[in-house]
């Protein structure tokens, strides 16, 4: 198998075409600023959901603190960009924010990832809260008053590029040996250890990778909405991301993408009724778990549909 095969080239073409189509629609004004906000939200949520899915859906580690990593990326990215007000500064900020989030991910992950299930969930929730309180009390983040005047460099191009990169990289990870090691941890941690897998190492790896991309999302968020407050990144945000992952299917990247789009549309419709939105989200969680716990896509991807077609062709 080589990098430049038919499938990859076709994928690349689709990616570029999609970008161009939307960019055109933006340029000629069909997609106005209201829709642009929805698109931005969708992109950021896709990155958040796919990265949380890596940790919770694929590796089976239930994390309720994803918003904490997003906030690290947001603040670090914003502060760097405010120091270096240029596109280069913006990009350095994004990567810097992501790296900072990943580092914190490793530091938090090593002690807490030995906890299981409910305890891990609460510990990650606690960690995100601690991060939030720290940001609330720091001078450089301007605390509760919020950080203002963040330069605005996020546009459709950067949103799209980072979203696509996130999806590709996480997909590449999942379909590789370290990725399969993570999946085996979800399936049966004791058996995985017995098969020679250092489960702590891979849990932390998945956790840190998830944090890295959450950091990217955070930095993009900061640069698009140009105002940050620690309370944006509270428990509710972590729940929002969790709902997308559960709805789309824990273990399906396609599911996270589709769910992010659907839920962003629902949210846009329910903008005036913010409490109703939360009630619907809550009901979604309960109903999905009771009646269709695998969510929309389960552990299947959109490419599985194509595989099925191919299998049939061969039989004929």
């Amino acid at each position, binding site marked *: 198998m080589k990098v430049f095969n038919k499938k990859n080239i076709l994928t690349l073409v689709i990616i570029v075409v999609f970008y161009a189509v939307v960019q055109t629609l933006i340029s000629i004004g069909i997609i106005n600023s209201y829709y642009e906000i929805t698109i931005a939200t969708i992109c950021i949520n896709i990155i958040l959901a796919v990265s949380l899915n890596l940790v919770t859906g694929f590796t089976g580690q239930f994390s309720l603190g994803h918003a904490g990593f997003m906030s690290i990326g947001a603040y670090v990215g914003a502060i760097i960009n405010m120091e270096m007000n240029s596109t280069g500064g913006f990009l350095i900020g994004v990567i810097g924010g992501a790296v900072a989030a990943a580092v914190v991910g490793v530091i938090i992950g090593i002690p807490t990832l030995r906890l299981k299930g409910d305890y891990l969930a609460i510990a990650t929730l606690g960690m995100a809260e601690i991060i939030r309180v720290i940001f609330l009390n720091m001078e450089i983040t301007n605390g509760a008053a919020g950080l203002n005047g963040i330069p605005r460099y996020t546009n459709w191009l950067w949103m799209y590029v980072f979203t696509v990169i996130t999806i590709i990289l996480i997909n590449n990870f999942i379909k590789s040996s370290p990725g*399969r090691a993570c999946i085996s941890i979800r399936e049966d941690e004791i058996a995985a250890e017995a*098969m020679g897998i250092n489960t702590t190492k891979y849990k932390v790896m998945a956790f840190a990778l998830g944090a890295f991309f959450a950091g990217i999302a955070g930095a993009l968020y900061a640069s698009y909405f140009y105002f940050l407050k620690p309370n944006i990144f509270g428990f509710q945000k972590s729940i929002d991301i969790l709902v997308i992952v559960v709805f789309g299917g824990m273990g399906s990247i396609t599911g996270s993408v589709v769910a992010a789009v659907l839920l962003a549309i629902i949210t846009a419709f329910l903008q005036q009724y913010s409490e109703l939105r939360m009630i619907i989200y809550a009901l979604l969680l309960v109903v999905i778990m009771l009646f269709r716990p695998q969510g929309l896509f389960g552990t299947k991807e959109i490419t599985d549909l194509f595989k099925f077609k191919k299998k049939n062709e061969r039989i004929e």
Partner: protein
Amino acid sequence: MSLLSVEKLTKSFGGLTAVSNVNMNIEKGELVGLIGPNGAGKTTLFNLLTGVYAPTTGNIKLDIAGNIKEIGGLKPYNITKSGLARTFQNIRLFKDLTVMDNIRIAMHQNVDYSMSQALFRSNKFYKEEDRLIEEAEKLMDIFKMTHKKNELAKNLPYGEQRHLEIVRAMATKPVMLLLDEPAAGMNPNETANLTETIAKIRKEFNLTVLLIEHDMSLVMKICERIYVLVYGMMIASGFPAEVRKNKRVIEAYLGEDV
């Protein structure tokens, strides 16, 4: 020195001593059985050998080609890397994954690319992935699982699941295999296949095997030596003919009819 030497191994959980002062020696190429009544501590002993538990006192030494390594207290994945693989009493397959994936995952420690090479799909990544698939297919071919390679582990019939457990353990390229009640729940047909599989493992892979079993006809037929564990203590060891006549063993476990 023996391939596996266990010296004065003891494991206590609080006030309860599950394994007490156990000594065991297994030579390269042997097929040894470990028998005893339920609750005797056999699986605990396996768990000590494979790192699930750390010994309270005592040593476990692995001697591979002159390299002597103390493996007591090591983590399971390190012990597997050292060459000791196991199967589980209650099947622990990766249920929602295919047979191919179950096997590929067991080959993980022998994979030679880094995380970034995986993320950015270098040529090395593609080469190694191809090699993995090739090796997995070879293994499946040897153990006659090729026709099920894309089947989900949970959809396999019981006997095949147990078979896959063994094949998966083989994929870690061990020098010694620990089988925990591999014949449990099997009908005579499946047990016959199991016997064949174990024979193949020893002949073609030159593997040493230690197995826990309750199926006495299987044990007496294939094991070269037998250890008997009762209440955490090794009360007898020797050739099947001797063990089967040992008064203490008959009293504690076998009964008169064997």
